[in-house]
């Protein structure tokens, strides 16, 4: 089954309760659900856990969607709500628990981790600091199968607005990273100057 965005997803059949249709719809939308979660979840919340919660909510509530054209905006709202609510819960839980795990578990987790480059982590942090209306379309555009038109459909906005937000969001991201780099360089320079003064004083 194609993982790409598909305009011909059997949304009506899914709403009517056909399991195979709903599975097909889920496969067609789950990647952009992941992007929306990434854009809205707290850093410490588990992406896979949240994906499963969204999947469960889709199963339980899809029959409440009145019209197939409302499905994507509905799913986006469901996803954002889960990201925020469950994210807060996960955050509280993790902060409240000081977990000690055995070495075997540690090794297993290390193997299962997704590895991101330092550059990707740095850019992601900066992207997550963007205002919400820019963050979401910028991240969605990085999901290769989504065009401006498709992003506009999910966000219920005109295509021109999406293009403008992506362009502006990219500029803001660039400026944020430039400012961070500048700050880091300045901090490094100050540190070196301080060290030089100390060494000079010691003499």
């Amino acid at each position, binding site marked *: 089954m194609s993982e790409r965005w598909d305009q011909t997803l059997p949304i009506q059949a899914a709403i009517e*309760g056909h*399991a*195979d249709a*709903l*599975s097909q719809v889920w496969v067609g939308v*789950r990647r952009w*659900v*992941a992007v929306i979660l990434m854009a809205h*979840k707290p*850093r*410490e*919340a*588990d*992406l*896979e*856990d949240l*994906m*499963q919660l969204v*999947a*469960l909510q*889709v*199963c*339980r509530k899809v*029959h409440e969607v009145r019209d197939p054209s409302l499905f994507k905006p509905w799913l986006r709202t469901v996803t954002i709500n889960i990201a925020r609510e469950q994210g807060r819960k996960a955050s509280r839980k*993790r902060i409240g628990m*000081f*977990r*000690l*795990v055995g*070495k075997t*578990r540690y090794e297993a*987790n290390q193997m*299962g*981790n*997704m590895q*991101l480059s330092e*550059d*990707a*982590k*740095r*850019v*992601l942090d*900066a*992207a997550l600091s963007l205002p919400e209306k820019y963050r979401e379309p*910028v*991240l969605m555009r*990085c*999901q290769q199968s989504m065009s*401006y038109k498709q992003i506009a459909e999910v966000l219920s906005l005109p*295509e*021109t607005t999406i*293009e*403008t937000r992506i*362009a*502006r969001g*990219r*500029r803001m991201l*660039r400026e944020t*990273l*430039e400012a961070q780099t500048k700050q880091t360089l300045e901090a490094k320079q100050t540190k070196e100057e301080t060290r030089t003064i100390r060494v000079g004083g010691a003499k």
Partner: protein
Amino acid sequence: MSDKPNKPNTNEPGMSAEHSAHLRDLLISRVIDGSASPEDWSSFRVLAANDAQVWTDLSDAQREHEALCEVMNAASSVADGVDLPGGSGSPLVFESRVSTTARWGGWAIAAVLMLGWYTGSITVNTNDPNTGNTAGMIPTGKILKEASPEEAMDQYMHAGQQSGQVVGEMPNQIVIETRPMKDGTIEITYIRQIIERRVLDQAYRETVDEFGNPIAVPVNLDTLNKRKPQ
């Protein structure tokens, strides 16, 4: 992109600085997306002839886009591993879940109580004959391979408590799903929570990365040792 709604032309005289910056952003964005038209490229060349900084901005924006694509590819891999509960090949389970969740949801609380009574696991003291627990009552000499799940569980609890590895079982089970069956019975899927204790020579604190994946960080034992030893 064939029919662009926004038509950037940075060469227009009298254009405001804000508008010019907006069109500059659009051009860079389209080049990154690979959707720039010949007109866009012409505008970009004109822009670059007057402002060499645009090349640096384009390069930075491209690199940042690639970095975010890396993140989203990783997120897509996670997404691809998540199917609907019940699986696509099990329409009976799925339909049952959708249509009966609300109707049978109320059974969850009752089911917890029933399970607690049925399994006799409300208490952790398995040696008390009054609790109804069967720990220690497994026929001696019965090997684990032949034991039923309940007998094997009791063996585990009993042996674990004797060795000190098992502290006990939480009194409440977590009900995941309650489902009526065609023959009038009820199927309950639930989690039993066993508390174990271990002594480790090295501990790790669990934290998370950008995706919420657990990452283990070694705990400084000196910090732990400052606490009163148990």
